[in-house]
């Protein structure tokens, strides 16, 4: 696969007034392949925006080597700019006196797109984001969610090879966030060779949306892999949760018969017991189910528990994500 983005030994230092310089990105290395949705996941202040600004030619790296679409961010700025676009969640841009359509047309002109073609794309994407009916609404009359969708359309109509999204669902409600994620998936699947690099501090979003994720914390890359591999990497064990009707003598019997770790929590008030299993292999579960049924215990619920990215973060950083954010 071709590399859409190459980051080598990237470092960015901010000089500050009356304070020591601050290293926002430190010795970072990763590649993004063509066709991927790649996520930068990290708590507030991790350095996500800094990385995305460097990749989108808005900021120079202090050290290191960065290529976007095969072009060097230092020397080939113009070549990069014509094949990328960047949309920042929560941004408000444009002019209040313009309508949605006019505003999008204006931005398309900065990419030299012929007006007829621009209008065609505007119609297409406004329909996709369900905003076509608002095409003649003035920009200053839109709600936050609408603005966010318009911003996304601004990024899509220039048909970038590489699309950068900085916190694309920031401040949106559940439904708004879902719509935005759907659009991103649709867009990337629409044509080959498109790439998305997005930042987020929502674990579930990264998990659902991204082909690969780079977890970053305090300017350092902590891990980079597919969500599945990241989750698998923290533990070889398989977790299951089973609820059965409450029965007093459950405990000992199972502890002796099972190859793995078992813990049982009783909820007599509900008449239930919750069995948590940690097994070396998936197929161990078959034995366990057999034992349960032999005892005549009805299985009320059965669930395989996957580790979350949250667990991955805790394992790698040694602290909870929110604790890092509150720092």
């Amino acid at each position, binding site marked *: 696969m071709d590399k859409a983005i190459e980051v080598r030994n990237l470092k960015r230092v901010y000089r500050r007034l009356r304070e020591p310089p601050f290293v926002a990105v430190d010795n970072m290395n990763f590649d993004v392949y063509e066709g991927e949705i790649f996520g930068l996941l990290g708590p507030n202040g991790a350095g996500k925006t800094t990385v995305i600004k460097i990749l989108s030619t*808005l*900021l120079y790296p202090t050290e290191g080597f960065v290529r976007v679409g095969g072009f060097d961010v230092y020397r080939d700025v113009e070549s990069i700019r014509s094949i*990328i676009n960047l949309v920042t969640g929560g941004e408000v*841009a*444009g002019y209040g*006196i313009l309508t949605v359509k006019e505003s999008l047309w204006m931005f398309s002109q*900065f*990419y030299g797109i012929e007006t007829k073609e621009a209008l065609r794309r505007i119609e297409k994407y406004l329909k996709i984001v369900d905003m076509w009916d608002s095409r003649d609404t003035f920009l200053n009359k839109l709600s936050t969610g609408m603005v966010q969708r318009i911003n996304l359309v601004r990024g899509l109509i220039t048909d970038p090879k590489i699309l950068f999204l900085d916190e694309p669902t920031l401040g949106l409600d559940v439904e708004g966030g879902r719509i935005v994620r759907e659009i991103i998936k649709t867009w990337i699947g629409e044509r080959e060779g498109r790439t998305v690099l997005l930042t987020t501090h929502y674990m579930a979003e990264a998990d659902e949306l991204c082909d690969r994720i780079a977890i970053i914390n305090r300017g350092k890359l902590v891990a980079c892999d597919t969500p599945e591999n990241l989750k698998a990497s923290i533990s070889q064990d398989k977790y299951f949760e089973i609820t059965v009707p409450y029965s007093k003598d459950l405990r000992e019997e199972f502890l002796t018969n099972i190859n793995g770790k078992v813990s049982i929590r009783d909820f007599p008030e509900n008449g239930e017991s919750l069995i948590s299993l940690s097994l070396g292999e998936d197929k161990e579960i078959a034995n366990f189910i057999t034992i349960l049924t032999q005892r005549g215990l009805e299985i009320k619920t059965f669930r395989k528990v996957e580790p979350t990215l949250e667990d991955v973060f805790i394992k790698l950083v040694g602290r909870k994500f929110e604790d890092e954010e509150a720092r």
Partner: protein
Amino acid sequence: MKKHVELFVRTAIARGYVRVKGQFTRDVNWLIASVVGGFLTMATYVYLYRSIQAPEEFSAMVLIGGFMTPYWLNVLWSVAVQLYWEKEMGNLQIIILSPAPLSAFLLGLTIGGMFQSTIRAVIILLIGIFVFKVSLVIYNIWVVVVVFLISLCALYGVGMMFSSLFLFYGREMWRVASIAQEPVSIASGIYFPIKLFGRVAASVVSLIPLSLGLDALRQLLLKDYELYFLNWKVEVLILVVMWVVFTFIAIRLLNYVEQIAKREARLTLRWQ
């Protein structure tokens, strides 16, 4: 190359469009207020000159000054400070991020600004001619138009040059501009001939293209105008040089500002 030119033109037109549309959607009160304001200042000077029995050509001189005033205010408040506003509005990052040159964007809003000002300037001119019964002589309309356009280009060149400085220094520069507006307006001879300043001072204020432009136009539009500083042909030549130099500096400054922005993480980021 063709692609570059096309991109430049499209960008300039798109940004110019916002200004033109703004002119027509902005409420009429605003237009009336700014025209009335310009007219009243002009009237003050006309009556002042008439009360001291100054020659009638002084009224015509004031009229030309009044006509050019909207352009000057536009240069100061809608061109020079505009990039700073664009940054505050979050548009600067988008234009820098795009393949379009920042200079095309700036040119677009400049030309749009000229258009806005022309509406006001023409209204003021017509009211002035009508109310004060001022007579202008036009020997050759095309010479007048060309000299006028060259003056405008040089004047807006100053605005474009200053836009980078405003962007860079933000609010401090703003204060400087507010303080400078009145003295500079007066010094550039909107309401009297700069010749009265004497050679040295007149040369200094000639650095403001408005001064030379006004002086040249007065020579072309007033009968037997004696109070000119330099011959209008010389002034036009100087204005052309200013136009070229200012535009060159403006473009260099824009590039420089972008470099600094990228190195020091300033300007394109809001609230910083």
